[in-house]
């Protein structure tokens, strides 16, 4: 099991570092967060204190688009190129293949997240930010990102076409993201609460983003990842029956 996960993980991480697209995604992400940070810093001089959760909160929206881009290739390409047939005849379980791929995406995302920590360092050098608050927000967005990547991987397993995979997972993530807004405008309180309970955003904005780590939110993201990966494994398995 471990050998399979490790080998697939290693290959996929190598693929990220060899792929211009992955660098482009990293560049775009860092450019956007850099601009955000810069303008927030300008504001903070005159109007309000700098927000320690600024970057993570921006990422909670950005991942709707970036997670699909990071995962769209992973299984769609394998099934298109026919390499999935070799993977599924290698002496490793289907779960190991899916897990290796997921972990490599999460790992690459974590690296990007680590780079954005630079903003916190800059902030710490010029003001006295609430470090605890920032750490909470980062833990939150790390888990949140994992969940969005798992959703992206699921859609990558559904089709041979990367673009279709990206489009479908962006749509799905956008719905999950918007359902949080829907929760805010629905009059029926119980229904609103339920919808917010199910939205990716809902478990971030009211807890991690304001500096609280709650077990239920951690469990929610872990659960999303587990469920998405479970379904992905089943879909990969179904290639054997086609």
């Amino acid at each position, binding site marked *: 099991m471990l*050998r*399979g996960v490790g*080998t*697939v993980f*290693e*290959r996929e991480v*190598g*693929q990220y570092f*060899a*792929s211009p697209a992955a660098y482009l995604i990293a560049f775009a992400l860092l450019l956007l967060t850099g601009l955000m940070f810069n303008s927030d810093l300008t504001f903070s001089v005159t109007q309000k204190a700098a927000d320690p959760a600024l970057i993570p909160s921006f990422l909670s929206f950005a991942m709707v688009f970036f997670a699909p881009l990071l995962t769209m290739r992973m299984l769609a390409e394998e099934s298109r*190129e*026919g*390499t*999935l*047939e*070799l*993977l*599924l*005849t*290698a*002496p*490793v*379980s289907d779960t190991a293949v899916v897990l290796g791929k997921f972990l490599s995406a999460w790992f690459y995302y974590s690296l990007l997240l680590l780079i954005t920590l630079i903003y916190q360092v800059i902030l710490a050098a010029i003001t006295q930010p609430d470090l605890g608050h920032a750490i909470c927000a980062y833990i939150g967005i790390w888990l949140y990102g994992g969940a969005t990547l798992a959703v992206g991987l699921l859609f990558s397993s559904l089709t041979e076409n990367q673009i279709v995979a990206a489009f479908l997972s962006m749509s799905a993530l956008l719905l999950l993201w918007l359902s949080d807004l829907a929760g805010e405008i629905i009059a029926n309180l119980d229904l609103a609460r339920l919808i917010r309970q199910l939205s990716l955003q809902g478990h971030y904005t009211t807890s991690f983003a304001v500096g609280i780590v709650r077990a239920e939110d951690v469990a929610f993201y872990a659960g999303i990842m587990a469920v998405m990966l479970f379904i992905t494994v089943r879909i990969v398995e179904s290639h*054997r*029956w086609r």
Partner: protein
Amino acid sequence: MIEVHDLTKRYGSHLAVDAISFEAHPGEVVGLLGPNGAGKTTTMRILTGFMPPTGGTARIAGYDVMADSLEVRRRVGYLPERVPVYPDMTVSGYITFWAKLRGVTRPRAQVDTVLERVNLTDRRNTLIRNLSKGLRQRLGLAQALVHNPEVVILDEPTIGIDPQQVIEVRESVRELGKNHTVLFSTHILSEAEQVCDRVVIINKGRIIAQGTPQTLRAQLQPGVALYVEIGGLGKEAAARLLREIPGIESVERQGDGFAVRAGGDVRPALSDAVLHTGCRLLELRPVAMTLEDIFLDLVGREN
């Protein structure tokens, strides 16, 4: 080494493989021969543990492909029909990946050995996207051999490459037979004849004949075939003359002469009859039926 018993595979209502049984012994090169859609790829996919059969059993090295799938997969090297590659990887990176995934204990040494074996050592740092089709085929072969499997399964390995490379691949398949059990598929009959110790002919999912190329020919060639050319007699008259000779079953025009089939050796009777009319016997020779003829004959009869 490979034991297949009543193996059946259905896609929905379509019967792709219909109760086939065959065996491959250690060190044997067995050819799966059949036209498009015969069920060759389907059979191989079952044997490699890619897909489960609908019925029957298949064992590799004593392990059932369903119950002990992982054990089977450890012992099988597989080259699918369309050589699957990761275009963005280097040659050695690609082979190392498969070596590690299949649990090779010293991947680096093994990768060097196998690249040497398929003659790709000087391309080890080339990106796969830049390899020609023939080189990709060799890469696919390297991938299938890197874990030194007991059984090697090759799905139409000579398709789409130039004649020179075809010869090379055939030679390497023969060579493989020395250390591995090889199952390979083809729709080219002369290829099966050249390369295989045993041939299994399938059509529409069913086995229509199997055996060594020699026994197949002997078994299936009904009687003796001769080529006869007669001088000094009109075509019609000559055909009539030949048909009247006892023992001759069929007479067909072929070029300037006739292809004659008979139950036994009719050469004495034939030459007597021809000379008796005062004509000349210009040519009389036995025609060995190739596997090709047998195959077309069999497939034709089936259809």
